């Protein structure tokens, strides 16, 4: 890792400058994470008086627990659904906005602000839209003969949280897709056009492949978002229900550890989640490196 060619020299100053950041990281990040690692191998007795070291027993139990496996599957469905919806819609918007000249700024302004809305608030907004007694969407769906009820029907609840989570993420994806589209050389598109390729053909054979670095990057970011930042969406609306249909992993860690008081199991779940974040972060950073070194 580089520094400047010419640097200051001081025996203590660099350490003093780094101290606040490093101290906070050690106390509030590294220490709790190592505690989670340690606790994941302990089991407390029912009264919380003694704990015994049980090696990987907590993990074995987790992977034998149908509820945990179900939560994994729910998380996968939720993450894939959110990623596809958020990316598909924003790609469509970005392609359309990219054609515009004068109105581009306007549309961008109209599409970026949902980024500012907290996931929990996004959840409540859509929860209200889909409310079975006063909501507008169920009322319209009734016109089509569909009886919407996210309080009883697990699929309906899942659709609701996916829409809420994806809605908030559209802005982010839109901005990156638009930037990606603008970096595609116009000459390539013109050349294809001269060769007689239609609009759709040009998009799928030239624009979309050239956009793939952006798409891949956004896929990782969206999966991370859906897995870890959507706690608020679930907690403020469905609370994991009905019948655990929207019980994603992050929500389950919170429930088991904080509400249920099952420390060993919660810590083991934390460790698994940590492993997932680490893998995803590494993928994301390797991608950034590659792009920089083109």
């Amino acid at each position: 890792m580089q520094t400047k060619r010419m640097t200051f020299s001081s025996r203590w100053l660099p350490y003093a400058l780094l101290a606040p950041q490093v101290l906070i990281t050690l106390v509030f990040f590294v220490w709790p994470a190592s505690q989670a690692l340690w606790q994941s191998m302990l089991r407390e007795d029912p009264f919380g008086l003694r704990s015994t070291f049980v090696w990987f027993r907590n993990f074995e139990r987790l992977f034998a627990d149908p509820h945990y496996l179900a939560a994994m599957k729910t998380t996968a469905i939720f993450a894939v659904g959110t990623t596809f919806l958020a990316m598909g819609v924003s790609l469509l918007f970005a392609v359309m906005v990219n054609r515009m000249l004068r109105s581009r700024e306007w549309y961008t302004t109209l599409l970026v602000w949902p980024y500012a809305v907290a996931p929990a608030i996004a959840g409540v907004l859509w929860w209200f839209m889909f409310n079975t007694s006063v909501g507008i969407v169920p009322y319209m769906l009734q016109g089509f003969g569909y009886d919407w009820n996210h309080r009883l029907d697990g699929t309906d609840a899942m659709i609701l949280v996916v829409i809420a989570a994806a809605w908030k993420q559209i802005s982010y994806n839109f901005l990156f897709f638009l930037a990606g589209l603008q970096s595609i050389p116009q000459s390539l598109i013109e050349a294809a056009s001269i060769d007689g390729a239609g609009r759709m053909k040009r998009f799928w054979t030239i624009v979309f492949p050239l956009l793939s670095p952006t798409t891949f990057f956004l896929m990782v970011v969206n999966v991370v978002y859906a897995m870890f930042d959507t706690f608020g969406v679930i907690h403020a609306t469905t609370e994991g229900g009905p019948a655990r249909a929207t019980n994603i992993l992050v929500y389950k860690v919170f429930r088991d550890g904080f509400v249920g008081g099952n420390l060993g199991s919660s810590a083991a779940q934390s460790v698994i989640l940590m492993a997932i974040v680490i893998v995803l972060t590494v993928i994301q950073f390797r991608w950034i490196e590659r792009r920089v070194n083109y």
Partner: protein
Amino acid sequence: MVQNDRFGTFLAHLILILGVGIVVFPVYVAVIASTHAPGTFLQGVMPLLPGSHAIENYSEVIFQGRSTAGAPPIGLMLWNSFVMAMMIAVGKIAISLLSAFAIVYFRFRFRIFFFWIIFITLMLPVEVRIVPTFEVVANLNLLNTYAGLTIPLIASATATFLFRQFFMTVPEEMLEAARVDGAGPMKFFKDILLPLSVTNIAAMFVIMFIYGWNQYLWPLLITSDESYYTVVMGIQRMVTGADSEPLWHLVMATVVLAALPPILVILFMQRLFVKGLTETEK
């Protein structure tokens, strides 16, 4: 433009206008709902035109609240959210500037090691270490304090990396000139580096203010005293806290007030926001 087809452009506008409409609609509905009297919601599906109770509803949620429905007044919550967002944004920027300065402008032992310690924060979001982090904060007696709400969140690898990257682009001659003139490291930092970083600091501030304002899980864990609630987590109590159907007109007034400040920040500082977002990559 490759070819000038009017129909295609018309279609694109149509799709965009419909799309923007769908994106804006939930917020429109929330604003409308916040202007109606409570009785409106008992008569079935909600209306789509504004009602006449806006002022009553908003003053009720801000100043009085409804203690029976799990809704303390949100004036204080808005203030708490503001304090939290400001402290997080300023704190993150301050410690990130200092550590980026150390990493770029000094050579010292364990530099790489410290760099990795900072990098680690990216891999350990609060969500994956809920219980042990809570224990640390509880042991430090920081529950129900502003310090507990903010300090654990101000370590930031993204801000440090952004400033590091920017410092690397500052010409070497700056440092040489400063040293010729006899400036020490802190003077160089204060008089040359900081003024050069103003745009980056502002962009970072926009992103981090929104990040701080929208915190949800952390205040939920750390606060049990109503006087430290933040508005984003307070809404949850109004929606799921009450046994009966939520008081939608008050919930939606709260939602609008909770969402408005960060939205305004984005709309007024759109350029800085886009810069901050695309340059930190996350």
